[in-house]
């Protein structure tokens, strides 16, 4: 590819178009956290320490419902299981890097940079400058995310409830999930998980989410086997 410094700048720039997706999502998250009364300092602490938007939004909804802390953490874990998958899939590209660099990649590993990184290096696992590109990409993504959460927190309490902005949270999840449905097995996994979540809504301790995840995975695998395709 290119020398390290050039890769770093390429990464920084490559992250810019992602902001169109990141900023509204960060705003929605900030607004939601402010709306349920999470203080700005704690909200920013969560944003910096956790740095995984979907789980923050899910946690915010649960905190608003008064769910026990352990349930909130468990729900976040389930929502973020995909990060475990990313970690496994991206490892070969960073296996030769220092511990510090691998820790940095771990901290910043989220959906959009992951996808963009694989677009560039997926076919060139041995190419130089991988870390520098990922770092540039992640810096743009991180700054854009934190700034938009902060902006959401700032305006959060002042927006009129008549705007029904609380509905932006489920809409953000729709915007995240629907583009993932690229094959029949994924569609089957999503549909069955959605139906299960609705039917199991009354279960205590938010078991509905875990159950929905399990049913969705099983149906997805079964559909894949039935159709004999590998997605």
């Amino acid at each position: 590819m290119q020398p390290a410094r050039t890769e770093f700048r390429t990464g920084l720039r490559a992250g810019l178009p992602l902001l169109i997706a990141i900023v509204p999502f960060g705003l929605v998250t900030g607004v939601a956290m402010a709306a349920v009364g999470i203080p700005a300092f704690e909200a920013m602490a969560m944003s910096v320490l956790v740095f995984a938007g979907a789980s923050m939004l899910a946690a915010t909804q649960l905190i608003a419902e008064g769910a026990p802390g352990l349930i909130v953490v468990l729900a976040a874990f389930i929502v973020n299981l995909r990060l475990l998958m990313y970690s496994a899939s991206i490892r070969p590209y960073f296996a030769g890097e220092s511990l510090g660099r691998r820790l940095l990649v771990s901290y910043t590993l989220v959906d959009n940079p992951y996808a963009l990184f694989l677009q560039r290096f997926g076919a060139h696992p041995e190419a130089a400058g991988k870390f520098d590109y990922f770092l540039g990409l992640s810096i743009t993504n991180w700054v854009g995310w934190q700034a938009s959460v902060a902006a959401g927190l700032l305006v959060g309490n002042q927006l009129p409830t008549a705007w029904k902005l609380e509905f932006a949270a489920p809409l953000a999840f729709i915007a995240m999930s629907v583009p993932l449905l690229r094959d029949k097995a994924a569609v089957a996994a999503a549909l069955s998980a959605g139906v299960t979540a609705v039917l199991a809504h009354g279960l205590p301790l938010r078991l509905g989410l875990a159950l929905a995840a399990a049913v969705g995975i099983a149906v997805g695998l079964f559909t894949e086997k039935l159709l004999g395709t590998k997605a």
Partner: protein
Amino acid sequence: MNLWLIILGMSVATFGQRAAFLLLPARVQLPAPLRRALRYVPAAVLTAIWAPELLLQKGVLSLALGNERLLAGIVAVAIAWRFRVTFGTIAAGLVALHLFDWMF
């Protein structure tokens, strides 16, 4: 205080998930069946989060025209499916919500 425990728990869990394979020695691999299963996690979990928000009204299943969240959600799903845009999906869903609220 409880909020800080939640933040701490989420941070440790999330960082652990991300770091797991980046820090483990290369010979530790996810078993292939588990890897296949994990592929369906994002679609399943993210859908399971929004589906009840659209289909339930006060905890009861509602498929009526009066459920404007469901109607607006259908619009949002259609936009997301066709155009794969975050901002457009959220904006269209909010506009549709107000429109259906006014109509029905």
